[in-house]
């Protein structure tokens, strides 16, 4: 069953198509990955689904549980169960880790904060009284943001480069949370450049120049990272007509 449907989505910035007639079905309860080169439109797609400022004016439609969310602001989309792990997490001067985690949590309790921090591999004793500010590293803030998403129990999580800024030892906690989110019934969309992250997806979409080039099971989509990308002439030279041909051929 489709949780999210992207229908003929086109988004232009300064007259250039960043997303071009993009259509995708996101099956409920699965972990999906969106892969593609720099500038392909992956983050733009995540921001558009979330409805962030600057990504609201587009052609086509985005359906969540069969209903258009195009007109809904970010917070209403979030209250329907959609959320986003930002590539660069924000810093909140003075805002406590507990307050931040509980901000979006359905259940407000100390146990929820402790559970979320533990799942993100962070010691509650060490972090609960700290602030989500510049005294934390980017990797720590990312894991605290992940903990806040875990506590929110979302229906759909968009994760923009979930491993960026996170050290090798800590990235396992990111993957553990992805697994746990899926186990709890959340649908996850991973925006990634990383084959390691792709391994945690069931299914992937390859986009280039804002257009869907290929899609399939994770194992087959690994070809992209093995230099066996579908023929594609538009890296650095976006030509949308060329981009859609391989998919049409499939």
């Amino acid at each position: 069953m489709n949780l999210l449907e992207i229908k003929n989505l086109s988004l232009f910035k300064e007259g250039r198509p960043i997303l071009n007639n993009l259509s995708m079905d996101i099956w409920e309860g699965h972990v999906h990955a969106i892969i593609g080169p720099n500038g392909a439109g992956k983050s733009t797609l995540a921001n558009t689904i979330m409805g962030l400022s600057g990504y609201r004016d587009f052609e086509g439609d985005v359906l969540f549980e069969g209903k258009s969310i195009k007109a809904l602001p970010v917070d209403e989309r979030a209250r329907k169960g959609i959320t986003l792990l930002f590539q660069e997490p924000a810093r909140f001067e003075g805002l406590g880790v507990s307050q931040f985690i509980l901000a979006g949590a359905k259940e407000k309790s100390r146990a929820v904060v402790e559970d979320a921090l533990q799942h993100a591999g962070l010691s509650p004793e060490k972090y609960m009284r700290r602030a989500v500010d510049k005294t934390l590293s980017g990797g720590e803030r990312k894991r605290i943001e992940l903990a806040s998403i875990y506590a929110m129990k979302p229906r759909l999580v968009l994760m923009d480069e979930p491993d960026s800024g996170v050290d090798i030892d800590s990235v396992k906690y990111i993957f553990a949370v992805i697994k746990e989110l899926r186990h709890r019934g959340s649908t996850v969309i991973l925006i990634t450049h990383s084959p390691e992250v792709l391994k945690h997806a069931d299914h992937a979409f390859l986009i280039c120049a804002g257009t869907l080039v290929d899609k399939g099971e994770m194992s087959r989509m690994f070809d992209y990272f093995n230099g066996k990308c579908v023929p594609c002439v538009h890296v650095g030279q976006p030509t949308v007509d060329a981009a859609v041909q391989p998919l049409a051929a499939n």
Partner: protein
Amino acid sequence: MAEQAIVDKEALLEELLASINQHKFTPDVAHVEIHGNQVLNKNLVDGLMVEAESIEDGVKVHIRVKSGVTLKNPVNFCFGLIPENGVQRIIIDTVIGEGAHAKFIANCTFPNAVNIQHLMNATITVEKGASLSYFERHVHGPNGGVTIVPVTKVLVGEDARFSTEFELIKGAAGVVELEYAAEVTKNATVDMMTRIFGREGDRIHIKEAAHLSGEGSTGVLTSHIALKNRASATIENELIADAPYARGHVDCKEIVQDDARARAIPVVQVNNHLAHVTHEAAIGSVDSKQLETLLSRGLTEDEATDLIIQGLLS
């Protein structure tokens, strides 16, 4: 007549403390409560001297922490006026003796203010190797009828440390004219923090200055201000480093909503090539990245803004 005066004094004390949510202290906690020009209550501990003298519209207070003494608990001061109108002038002279260490908490409360002036003139000397942490919290009523003018001069002796926090978050700020100036000598440290929430027609002017005159001295001046409605604020932070290895930082953040206006004037000056001073200032609406992060957790824009401001002022 005398009995009535005692009853009035006790009732005032109770009301004063209730307005700051403080009711009883244990005997080992030093505290002084002053209403208008009257000392209502005082409890001192070994090593702490507090002498107060009534003047026409306030009190003169001499505070001394004896050399070498470390006060175990913070000393609690409560200044205030319960009536709607009046003037309270506080003249304070504080000396923290050599090698002594103390923490002061001052609550200034004007819960019913319609037209009140709270004027404070303070000199603070933190002698060699001593430290003083001073936290001043203001509790105002909702009407904003308070003019507060605290002027403080601080001398931080060699290897000494002085930190101060000024908080005015609850109630309407009214008119605030805050002025702090610190002279920071060899290897001494000063840390000044101001947190104010201005609403309605509040007018806030903060002038914090630190002169890093001693070798290896350090200073940090931080102002976090949130303004809404028609409130206005001007923040002047001045940090001058004259000595080698002096280090300083100025940090001014102001969140402005509605028709509020904010102005920041950071002045950083270095007169020695071995000194180093930095500053950062950010004024404007709530940061969009912070806002969108909280919106994407399902908070409304108002809820998210309140939480961001709460953090900034915490």
